[in-house]
């Protein structure tokens, strides 16, 4: 079995090698198109001693930020904003001297909301379109404008907004955080866990996914203990035992670690199959790095409250 540090360093090395000349990362390691999610995750994951790579990543994120404060999904995409903005804002907010860019993004996040937040759509989902069981009054963040709220962008946005302290936009911020938390609680699958955001369709329960469950739990960390969080952690622990893909396993470890659940056997297994699967995806490599951080150097999601 390979050592955790060895796998961590190997993923960090993949990130260094795959970094584009302009400082960002593509999804696939030999790609050329910078995407925001792998770039933000890599910035969160890169060890603090890699100053050159981190500075280049920060510059790339600042350069790709749209005039309205949001981020697109990838370099070249339109500038209307995407569900990765919360993640990018969170990554930048942890870097020195980037308060301005992060606060522009957070301001945009406060205005960006799922389509069901509009009364007309709420009316539609309460009257004529009731096949998906959800409460349209509880909305979060969508992947892109003019669409519904979903789990990943809502969780990313919550992580970003909950990392802000002090009085900045306090009332609006707290209202959006509350609404986002309630949206996640509303979309939980029967029995615990989350998928993309549809828990029951046509009276049939849909299965939860480990990555969506983990990211939702990270967004809810710090909330008073609840039955839905406990059920989701229990489900994630059980699911973790049968997982064998790096992306899902790494997110699972991050969430379980955050809630002080045992992770050592999962981390050992991640190390075993990380080599076999030959990680080529930069977002995955970054999440594996974060998951395998040593206990004495808590990762970005451990520090977030």
């Amino acid at each position: 079995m390979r050592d955790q540090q060895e796998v961590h360093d190997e993923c960090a090395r993949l990130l260094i090698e795959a970094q584009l000349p302009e400082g960002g990362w593509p999804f696939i390691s030999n790609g050329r198109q910078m995407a925001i999610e792998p770039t933000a995750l890599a910035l969160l994951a890169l060890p603090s001693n890699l100053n050159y790579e981190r500075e280049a990543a920060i510059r790339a994120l600042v350069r790709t930020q749209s005039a309205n404060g949001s981020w697109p999904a990838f370099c070249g995409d339109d500038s209307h904003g995407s569900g990765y903005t919360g993640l990018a804002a969170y990554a930048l907010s942890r870097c020195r001297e980037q308060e301005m860019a992060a606060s522009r993004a957070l301001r945009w996040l406060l205005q960006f909301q799922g389509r069901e937040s509009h009364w007309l759509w709420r009316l539609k989902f309460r009257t004529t379109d009731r096949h998906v069981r959800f409460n349209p009054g509880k909305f979060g963040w969508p992947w892109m404008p003019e669409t519904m709220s979903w789990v990943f962008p809502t969780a990313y946005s919550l992580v970003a907004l909950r990392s802000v302290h002090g009085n900045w936009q306090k009332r609006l911020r707290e209202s959006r955080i509350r609404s986002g938390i309630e949206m996640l609680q509303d979309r939980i699958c029967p029995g615990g866990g989350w998928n993309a955001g549809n828990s029951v369709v046509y009276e049939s329960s849909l299965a939860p996914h480990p990555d969506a469950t983990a990211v939702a739990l990270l967004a809810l960390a710090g909330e008073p203990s609840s039955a839905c969080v406990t059920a989701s952690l229990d489900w994630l622990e059980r699911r973790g035992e049968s997982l064998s893909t790096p992306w899902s396993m790494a997110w699972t470890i991050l969430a379980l670690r955050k809630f002080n659940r045992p992770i050592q056997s999962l981390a050992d297994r991640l190390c075993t199959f990380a080599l076999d699967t030959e990680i080529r995806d930069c977002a995955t490599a970054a999440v594996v790095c974060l998951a395998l951080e040593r206990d004495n150097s808590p990762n970005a999601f451990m520090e977030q409250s």
Partner: protein
Amino acid sequence: MRVVKALTTGARQFAAEATIVALLEKPRYGMVRKHPRSRVAILRAESYSQKLFEILRCGLDLFHLDLLGKTVLLKPNLVDYIPGNHINTHPLLVSAAIECFRGLGVASVIVGEGPGHQRDTDLVLLESGMAEALHHQKVRFVDLNRDELIECPLLADYTGLKRLWLPRTILEADFIVSMPKVKTHHWSGVSLSMKNMFGVVPGAKYGWPKNILHCTGIERSILDICATVPVHFVIADGIIAMEGNGPLNGAPRALGQIILADDPVAADATCARLMGFDPEKIAHIRAGAQFLGNSSVAEIGQIGEALQAPKAAFALVKSFAYLRVPQTS
């Protein structure tokens, strides 16, 4: 009670008819890919076994495909994995297709898919058994959700989106084979070769699920995507199909057939008939028959097994019950 039921059914049928009328009202396409006549082969295959290669090879021979030196992209339907549910195109059928196309002297075969619900594509590949099949075949798999993207003008304008970002791998392929699972779908009635093309729309840009396609109308999105990304051939997995609350939670339905076609509209119209549905009532098939292919029996050259309606139509969620061909006694 009966009056209420009749009124509800009538209202649903009226709404469906209105959608079809709206789609047909004004041509919204900038190209016509329809040939005077299409060919569809129905092949009998009772189970998933190693015999599939032979069955498929014989079926493909009927089409005399000239693919020498071409890059072939197989687009199976991989949505999610739920133990016991027949959601995805079976790995043995994909494996057989890889071997068959290699036998036709193609330059390369690639398998590509961008699951619409599950972000961890590797997990779906692994748990569905597809990863093992692809590894065995030494074939390249491209996660279309995370591929490099190119912005493309849409060749039809049913959604009003005008442009979509599409994966480079899809745009560079010479020959695209849609390999759907034959199943019912709670939002679109059926999920066949045309609906299967939702998987080419990248999640990295449009999210999971690809909600923009639902917001602009599923039927409309199907038409815009299929106009822009040509489906050159169809291999539909109807060996064990799905009925009821598809695409994830439906019940298995042993149909025992593989459907091959050189036209996605003809393939879907034939599959619909095999499911006991009237393709004229399926909005995207009826509108697609204006410019993407042929749906009427008269325009489809049937080869292989004869087309026979099932004894009982596939089960559907209530809102699509009107698709069923009325039983004649």
